């Protein structure tokens, strides 16, 4: 009964969304639009929670539950199992689309009714595409007869708290760009679009998308770091790239919106960027879901889905880009920016972000192109991205340091130097200080540390001046980027590792820590059994710092092994221990990583998120003053 209801509400949301599409074409029917928007929101909500319900009660008559769940799964993972698979995650995607649809509708007032109706029409079209996709190719309520006794379980590597909220946050990011897309299309479609303060409507959506995409990506990295067990956290995997590309365009979009707001310039560019950001989000989905790019995260291998999404993207892309080509003329302007101005620095930011994004895109699809057009097969991996992306990002970070303190229009060069002198001094002191601590020198390391402190000290200087009218969200987010770079540099340059075979009671030294392998235990978890090593870590003075307990888990239901790293974190370094194979006679293989400054990656990401939230609230105030 419940699965039937879920399916019914999914179809009902299809009905409401088509209704919204047609009714919002005819403006001034507020009553009907209200019904459509609310009906769509409620029915997709109900449908989503019914799927959650069948997962919680383990209703194995539903194919989706049978394939992805098991009665022994802890409740939290039964819930997250809803979006841990392709079909369920589509339902979440639809839910987020309808929530943004609702917020676009909330912009509606007498003055902007034509504009908001047009945006709602576009949003309805996009949503229709995804609901149809779900119903036709990936219906999560599909039944299975006869009802199996128990489920097939699910990938234990996905049993991780970070991965519970990673997809919802990421989807808020991807789908948030749909609202910016709809607003952009509405602006371009209207004859008097330039008279509407569309950028004020667009900015909160872009901020929400960007902020949640940032924290979503960060949580994915956290998961990789804790779960995959070799101390890395970013692998330039196609799936990671799929989220990184919209983030880069979102970053560009966010900054150029400031120019539109303050200088009425770059309007056409912003309209185009907001279209591209959403298209890239959809293309990213296509790449991941089609199975064309095989990667560790891929959960669906079905070409018909790929073809559908590809066709849908082509339709959206074709329509929006043609619209842009024909209607964007009046949004072009002849303002030119010099280097030494705030708008100049934002222009540089935008261009470099787009260059990085294009490079990542190229690297992601190039293996497909080579395979399609030659008999050869190539791999594009981490070394490629390191050698192409990093050189482009370095100037962007340099500019990011001084951008905020430059004035609009023209800036006196000698004045600029006076402004940045304190931060140059501060950067040098902090850099010297960190190299005194870590005493390890490499060109990349030095560059990374200088860049990081360059950002941090510039923003600290801004904070101390107080009398600036700069947005506090921006300062906080930029500080976060500085901390992030510090963590990335530290963990990738100064990482040390020891790979050895250890017997019980043997000892190993890494940096200034002595680690003793005390014992090994057998433990039983809710749906796994494990071997748990017990390592005591001492400092130089033989004081105990911590006891680390890495595990080797075996999940009998799905018949797979996972390694659970055990990590001791402080502000300076992580000690990361992984237990490998072994036995009592020969000892166990033990991997110990000394990862400096890793925690600053996560702190940096959190600070960025906080900055985003501050900016969202201040921009919502602007929006309210408009109505």
């Amino acid at each position, binding site marked *: 009964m419940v699965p039937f209801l879920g399916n019914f509400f999914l179809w009902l949301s299809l009905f409401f969304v088509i209704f919204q599409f047609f009714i919002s074409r005819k403006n001034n029917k507020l009553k009907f639009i209200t019904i459509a928007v609310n009906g769509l929101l409620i029915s997709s909500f109900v449908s989503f929670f019914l799927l959650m319900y069948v997962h919680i009660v383990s209703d194995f008559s539903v194919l989706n539950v049978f394939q992805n769940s098991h009665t022994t799964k802890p409740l939290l993972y039964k819930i997250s199992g809803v979006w841990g698979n392709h079909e369920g995650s589509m339902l979440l995607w639809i839910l987020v689309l309808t929530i943004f649809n609702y917020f676009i509708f909330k912009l509606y007032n007498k003055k902007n009714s034509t504009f908001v109706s047009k945006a709602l029409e576009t949003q309805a079209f996009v949503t229709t595409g995804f609901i149809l996709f779900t119903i036709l190719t990936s219906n999560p309520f599909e039944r299975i007869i006869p009802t199996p006794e128990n489920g097939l379980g699910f990938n234990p590597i996905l049993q991780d708290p970070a991965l519970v909220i990673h997809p919802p946050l990421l989807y808020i990011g991807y789908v948030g760009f749909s609202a910016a897309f709809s607003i952009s299309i509405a602006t371009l479609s209207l004859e008097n679009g330039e008279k509407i303060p569309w950028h004020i409507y667009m900015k909160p959506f872009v901020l929400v998308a960007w902020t949640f995409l940032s924290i979503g990506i960060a949580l994915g990295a956290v998961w990789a770091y804790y779960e995959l*067990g070799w101390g890395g956290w970013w692998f330039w995997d196609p799936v990671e790239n799929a989220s990184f590309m919209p983030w880069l365009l979102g970053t560009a979009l966010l900054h150029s919106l400031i120019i539109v707001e303050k200088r009425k310039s770059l309007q056409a560019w912003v309209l185009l960027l907001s279209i591209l950001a959403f298209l890239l989000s959809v293309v990213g989905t296509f790449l991941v879901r089609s199975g064309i790019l095989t990667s560790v995260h891929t959960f669906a291998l079905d070409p018909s889905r790929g073809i559908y999404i590809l066709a849908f993207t082509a339709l959206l892309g074709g329509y929006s880009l043609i619209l842009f080509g024909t209607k964007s003329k009046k949004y072009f302007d002849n303002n030119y920016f010099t280097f030494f101005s705030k708008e100049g620095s934002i222009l540089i930011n935008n*261009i470099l972000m787009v260059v990085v994004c294009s490079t990542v895109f*190229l690297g992601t699809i190039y293996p497909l192109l080579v395979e399609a057009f030659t008999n050869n097969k*190539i791999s594009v991996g981490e070394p490629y991205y390191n050698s192409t992306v990093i050189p482009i990002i370095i100037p962007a970070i340099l500019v990011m340091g001084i951008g905020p303190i430059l004035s609009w229009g023209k800036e006196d060069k000698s004045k600029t130097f006076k402004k940045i002198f304190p931060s140059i001094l501060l950067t040098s002191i902090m850099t010297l200080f960190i190299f005194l601590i870590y005493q390890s020198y490499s060109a990349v390391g030095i560059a990374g540390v200088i860049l990081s402190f360059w950002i941090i000290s510039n923003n600290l200087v801004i904070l101390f001046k107080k009398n600036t009218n700069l947005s506090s969200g921006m300062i906080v987010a930029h500080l976060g980027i500085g901390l992030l770079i510090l963590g990335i540099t530290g963990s990738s340059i100064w990482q040390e590792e020891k790979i050895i075979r250890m017997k019980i009671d043997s000892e190993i030294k890494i940096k200034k820590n002595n680690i003793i392998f005390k014992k090994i235990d*057998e433990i039983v978890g809710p749906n796994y*059994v494990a071997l748990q090593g017990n390592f005591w870590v001492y400092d130089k003075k033989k004081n105990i710092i911590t006891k680390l307990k890495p595990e080797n888990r075996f999940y009998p239901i799905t018949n797979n*092994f996972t390694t659970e790293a055990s990590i001791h974190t402080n502000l300076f370094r992580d000690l990361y221990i992984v237990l*490998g*194979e072994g036995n009592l006679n020969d000892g166990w293989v033990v991997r110990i990583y000394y990862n400096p400054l890793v925690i600053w990656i996560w702190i940096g990401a959190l600070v960025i998120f906080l900055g985003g939230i501050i900016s969202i609230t201040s921009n919502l105030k602007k929006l309210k003053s408009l109505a």
Partner: protein
Amino acid sequence: MIINKIILIKIFLIITVICLTQFFSNNSNTVEPDEILQDQKQELRARNISKNIRCMVCQNQSIDESNAPLAKDLRILIRNKIKKGNKDKEIYEFLTNRYGDFILLKPPFKLSTLALWLLPLTFFAVGVFIILFHNKKSKKI
């Protein structure tokens, strides 16, 4: 009775896990202690090469990170070649002759990858041009 049954199952599972960890070393990952070369310089070279070599049966991992048996074989092969005195370049050549360009995580610079390597430069050049153009125009106004 039921409790006894559960305990029995648990014991059985623990035994299975111990047996399985004995027989399959694939639950451990990456380089293993017995592979590591005595000479630190040689070992470092081996690690650097391994990081650029794709694990052919994995999805997006280098052989340095992978726990697949094939990756292990390749790691040992690379170390043996280093011990024999082969240069890095010779080892890369040997591997690409045997497995094709697919094995290199950093694609080689050749006709089919021309665009892959040159386009980022082009993007960057176009970007710099736009910035310079803006800067120049702004001074005329």
